[in-house]
């Protein structure tokens, strides 16, 4: 997450960064001593912190750097290293959200629950809700996408991950919508047979590559107008060179 840091008045941050410059990310007010703590002598200065809290670089990170750093971010919420939380942690690790929900409900139902655990359970229930909302929004996007093969594959994965929970039903509905769409049906059939065609040949062997180039061109003609055809044509040209 990107966070602006300034020791100035909230009204000034609001007027300049939010209103005038249209900044959408969070801003935090600090004491001026923080600049010294971090050795900041000029503005703006950008520092990148990794998931372990280390400064990894100065200056805006590239997409590639961000991607690498994000791989170390755990999706498991923080919880004490106690045996009673082990099943819960394991369920989060496996993104078994149905189990997460049930384990949280079980914990919440305990009348002798201490305040700390109650707060932990509520926090995790909120996190699960947040992820549910996010995936529901994603399902709506996928359902409206014209890249049917991609949407179909992603929706299938959502159905598996969220089985037994509302997102799985929403994803199934979106999949049914795709299946009922004639254009999508054509596209999906083409994508499937293209995958099959590719699996038959080993392009690292010259004779097979030549044959594949021919077959891909034929495929492109047969399935003209589909995304798979365009893909096949491009691949045929690339391999034929």
């Amino acid at each position, binding site marked *: *997450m*990107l*966070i*602006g*840091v*300034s*020791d*100035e008045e*909230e009204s*000034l*941050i*609001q*007027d*300049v*960064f*939010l209103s005038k410059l249209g*900044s*959408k*990310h*969070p*801003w*935090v*007010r*600090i*004491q001026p001593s*923080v*600049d010294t*703590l*971090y*050795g*900041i*002598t*000029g*503005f*703006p*200065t*950008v*520092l*990148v*912190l*990794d*998931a*372990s*809290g*280390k*400064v*990894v*670089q*100065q200056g*805006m*990170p590239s997409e590639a750097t*961000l991607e690498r*750093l*994000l791989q*170390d*971010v*755990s999706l498991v919420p*923080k919880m004490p290293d106690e045996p009673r939380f082990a099943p819960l942690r394991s369920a989060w690790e496996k993104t078994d959200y149905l189990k997460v929900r049930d384990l949280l409900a079980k914990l919440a139902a305990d009348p002798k629950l201490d305040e700390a655990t109650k707060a932990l359970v509520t926090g995790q229930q909120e996190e699960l809700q947040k992820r549910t909302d996010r995936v529901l929004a994603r399902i709506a996007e996928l359902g409206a996408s014209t890249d049917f093969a991609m949407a179909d594959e992603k929706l299938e994965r959502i159905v598996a991950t969220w089985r037994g929970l509302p997102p799985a039903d929403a994803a199934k509905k979106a999949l049914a919508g795709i299946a009922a769409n004639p254009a999508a049906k054509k596209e999906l059939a083409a994508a499937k047979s293209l995958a099959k065609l590719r699996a038959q040949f080993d392009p690292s062997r010259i004779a097979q590559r030549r044959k594949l180039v021919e077959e891909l061109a034929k495929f492109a003609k047969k399935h003209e107008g589909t995304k798979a055809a365009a893909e096949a044509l491009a691949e045929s040209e690339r391999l034929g060179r």
Partner: protein
Amino acid sequence: MLVPIRSVAVALLFAAATLAQAPGQAAPAFEFLGGLNDAPKSFAELEGKVVILDFARTW
């Protein structure tokens, strides 16, 4: 993580002159006095996340 000694030396040199916190060091915690745009409430909330801190001033 191992950091080449030379890069640490260079970073420290610059830190004395102009640079911010040397890469490879743990970012020290600081107090959040308040926030805008749904900002986190404390430094602890940044734990486990990839964070880009933009030290900025309006002037």
